């Protein structure tokens, strides 16, 4: 098993919302999707994933319903809500601001 990389704090909710923005998914699907699209760099621990999903449910940013998978197994699929989409926008903006700021900090010494 690949060495786990810790997610930047506060980014898990955003990653889940972004993943769900593409398509409704079940918990395992979300974890898998994040892992794959990050080329196995980001591993979402289940210990964080399910509490986070409940948190998002409670905030009303995602909805959940039980559906059948392609393999005919019952699974809970999460869908992004309108409020969730708005929240994703907010978080992306904040994240970009943050990344840009961090990037500036890291670049400065080289330019000096």
């Amino acid at each position, binding site marked *: *098993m690949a060495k786990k990389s810790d997610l930047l704090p506060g980014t898990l909710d955003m990653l889940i919302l972004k993943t769900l923005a593409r398509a409704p998914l*079940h*918990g*395992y699907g979300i*974890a*898998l999707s994040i892992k794959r699209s990050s080329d196995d760099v980001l591993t979402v*621990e*289940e*210990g964080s994933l*399910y*509490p986070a999903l*409940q*948190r998002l*449910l*409670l*905030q*009303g940013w995602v909805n959940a319903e*039980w559906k059948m998978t392609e393999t005919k*197994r*019952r*699974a*809970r699929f999460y869908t992004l809500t309108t*409020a969730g989409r708005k929240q994703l926008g907010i978080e992306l903006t904040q994240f970009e601001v943050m990344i840009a700021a961090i990037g500036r900090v890291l670049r400065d010494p080289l330019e000096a």
Partner: protein
Amino acid sequence: MNPLSHFVKKLSILFGRQRFQSELDEEMTFHREQAEKEFLAAGMMPEAARYAAMRQFGNSTRLKEQTHEVVGFRAETVFQDLNFALRQLRRNPGFAVTAILILVLGIGVSVAIFGFVDAALLQPLPYAAPNRLMAVDESGAAFPVSNLSYYDYLDWKRLNRSFSSLEVYGGTGYLLRTSAGAEPVQAVRVSDGFFRTLGVHPMLGRDFAPGEDRPGQAKIAMLSYATWLKRFGARRDVIGQTIDLNSQTYTIVGVLPREFAFAPHGDAEFWAPLQDLNGCEQRRSCHNLDGIGRLRDGVTLQSAVADLKNIAAQLERQYPGSNQGQGAVALPLAEIIVGDVRPILLALLGGAGLLLLIACVNVASLMLVRSESRRREIAVRGALGATPARLTRQFVTEGLLLAVSGGLGGVVLAAWTMTVLTRLLPKGVATQMPYLADLRLNSHTLAFAAAVCLLASLLLAATPAIQLSFQKIRDGLAEGGRGNGSRVWRRFGANLVVVELAVAVVLLVGAGLLGQSFYRLLHVPLGFETDHLATVQVIAPDTIFKNDQQRVALGREVVRRISALPGVQSVGLTSVPPVACNCNTDWIRFVGKPFHGEHNEVNQRDVSAEYLATLKAKLVRGRLFADGDDASKPRVVLINETLARKYFPGEDPVGKKIGDGDLTPASIREVIGVVADVREGALDADIWPTEYTPFNQGPDNYFVVVTRTAQDDGSLLPTLVRTLHSIDPNLGTMDESTMNLRIGSTQPALLHRVSSWLVGGFAAVALLLGVVGLYGVVAYSVSQRTREIGVRMALGAQRSSVYSLVLGEATRLIALGISLGLVGAVAAALLIRKLLFGVQAWDAATLVSVAVLLAVSALLASYIPARRAASVNPTDALRAE
């Protein structure tokens, strides 16, 4: 997201918890299966794939808990803690019952004692602005607080600038004519503004009007509420009815309210204005009243006292014959009413507080021992992801649960104790403490109980929490781990035991000193034999027994008839029974000795010829009275040894002459004998000089019959009363009692008995708890060191060295606890030295015996585990872990 829908969602999850849980389970199972499939697809063996999936998934319980925390309410986890705490206590009922019982005892006793303190010392007197009410009295050389003379009172009332009103009262007895004959009743004569000064209004009828206390006014009276109920059936038309007191007709003008009580005369049934002055009140030198005054606004007690002292000094100059040396005192009325019981109540409250402390410390150390044995459980819960905060909260919850159960039980116990203790008070004492009549749980006691409960909870919650914070979870998980947790416990638990032992010493010494005081009080030399003595007080109506001849004849008839009763050996009459008070005093002067107006104050008793012989008092010189010593014979007097020693040092007093301050010829008496001191005053009072004069030379309508019988003195009492009524049905009788009971129910005996028994009880419990606490510590330490001891023994240590290892540790704790306790005990005893009688606060015998008693019991308690340690089989001990 608005908070309301947030809340509603949480609520729906809370109620659909079952569903939430099963959905979460299903979701996670799905997740694990998917992961497993993937591992399989990657070429893992099925078994390995499952484990890998499980490993990756991690601790599913913890995960569920975390998920639950997101959606759960905080309160929900509190319920979980509570639920778990209850389960823990149920699983270990021995611990729970012991801990709760100890707390119930500690809290119950302290709340009950506080109830008494509250009723007596904290609740204001039931009068208007009670803190402005002062007791006003004279002071003389012999009495720091003495009664007020009527004429002095009139001058004080007229001249003082400090009191908005100054009133007097004096107790008296009346014979009430009832359909069943004459019945003695207690009454109080008061000046007209007495009730206005107190701020008490009659519930029915009217108060005494100004001027109604002057001689010659119409005879009127007010009823106490209890009398209105008992004698008049609570009829509202009682106002205007007449009653017959001492063969005089009184009109009832008012009924006092139910809540009215006046402790100095708690048993008074009737209240009447002063009106006709009795013999004493016609002389300035005779003191029989007490004053109350209401301070003017802005006047301090000090300036009021100074004002009164000025007036007293002026009266001294004006009337040197009667007022020389007479000063003035004023002190808060509450002081007169509860001054006597304050030290004992405070001492008892202190004792109860110490008991509570020891109870809490004991339960805390029980919890420590238990939390030690639960280290594995804590460690496992910690490893499973319980946060330290959550673990601490678990212990806090358990502590709270214990404290609250103990508190609730304690309140019930307190309510019961208060009822029982007030019922145990003899009636005579209860009437002097009307403030205890309605003693029950009230807002004050409940608030106190809540505060005590809170403190206990804090202690109980803090102890394991502190201990937990020292502990490393990993140590707990280690097999048979005895890491720093044990060291913490040993340090902590040992400190607690030292506290327990020290407190036990303080209580034991207190109980020892109070017990000794009580013993010495009951064994003070009395100068007479108390067994087989029956006493009864007699009041003869002065309308029938009008003159001295009739009274002498009555006295002789009483003695003759009672002497004829079967079993009666001798009968005597006295004006005041022994062990009552240094009171009814006389100022005397000696013929032929220099005199400078000093007040030679002595007790004076009118006694019949047989009285001193009946008491079995010892005649030292001369002769006793004969029945013939009456008005027709020369006036004679007997003196006690103290009087002889004080006023006739080195002389033979027999034949000397004693008179009043002016040596009025009619007052001169010849000393015919000296008797050994009979204790006339209270048990704890000094022996005063006393003179005895023949009843037949100064008979009174009131006297006490003292009967010595060969049989049981108690069973004679009804016969005595019957016999007296058969002499004349108009004779009032009261307070029939045996001498021993009478002495036992005097206030000093009662206060000492109550304090020594209660503190003794506290001390016994404290001793038990302290010793059990020590046993717990030593036993625990031994159980933790079994392996170490096994190793030592395997390496050749002797049994004796194992004993000394275990007992050495115990001895250190015991020595520390006892020495701290002894210091505390002397300090505590100095605080209660007012309650001690005939024994010093630092009484070496008591201190040493307590130290020995506690040391021996504590060593015994530690010997049991030490024996267990020494009998350890080294191979077993080594194999055990």
